[in-house]
């Protein structure tokens, strides 16, 4: 079961397994990191840049630099993991029927896993052809 406690000490007592506690801690750490990464990401691409000018060229130039590859990989990995675990909390709350809950999770986790694969391929395995 997901941990509902609002304090670390209580969370430790409530955690049914060590794994559940690790997720609880992970949500907080990844959350803080993502706040900074995402505000930076949105600022760079929506405030400093004219959003409407974004095209293949723009993405290719950005992703030809290792800094942004790593920056984006961090968002991709932390964001999808944070999102997948958040989704798990929601599904545990909202879907009462165990087999429907199970299959919903199977489908959605697979989709998230596939998108991580796709995203990391485009970050590291695609030649954008920037000279």
């Amino acid at each position, binding site marked *: 079961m997901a941990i509902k406690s609002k304090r*670390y000490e209580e*969370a430790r007592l409530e955690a049914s397994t060590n794994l559940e506690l690790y997720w609880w801690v992970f949500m907080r750490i990844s*959350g803080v990191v993502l706040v900074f990464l995402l505000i930076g990401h949105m600022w760079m691409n*929506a405030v400093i840049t004219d*959003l409407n000018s974004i095209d293949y060229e723009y993405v290719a130039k950005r992703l030809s630099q290792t800094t942004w590859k790593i920056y984006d990989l961090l968002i991709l990995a932390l*964001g999808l993991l944070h999102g997948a675990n*958040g989704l798990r909390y929601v599904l545990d709350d909202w879907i009462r029927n165990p087999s429907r809950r199970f299959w919903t999770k199977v489908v959605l986790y697979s989709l998230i896993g596939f998108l991580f694969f796709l*995203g990391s391929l485009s970050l590291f395995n*695609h030649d954008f052809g920037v000279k």
Partner: protein
Amino acid sequence: MYRGREGQWAFYLHRISGLGILVFLMLHVANIASAMWGPEVSNALMKFYHQPVFQIGLLLLIAGVLYHGFNGLRIILMDFTAWGVRYQRQLWYGVWVLFVVFYLPFLLKIGGGILGGSHGD
């Protein structure tokens, strides 16, 4: 636990915004990954997403990210400080102050773009 009122709203908004962000993130990754199929495919998709209706969606998304992020920091303060839970309501209003400060530049820039008709070509 939350006794309704602000805490309940904070919780529901956190959930809804979280789910919304996840849906966007998945679409966004698929969109950017389309670059692997070359500039034609990728540019066609991007042009599609430059329509005003998606820009309004983007404004909603950015609102969601800022709220979820700042409210997340509030949750962390409640978790790890002795006083956080006592001042959870005040902290929530703090979340909204931060939200407005950070949201304004996005609203002006993207909203201005929508009104100015600078989308697409």
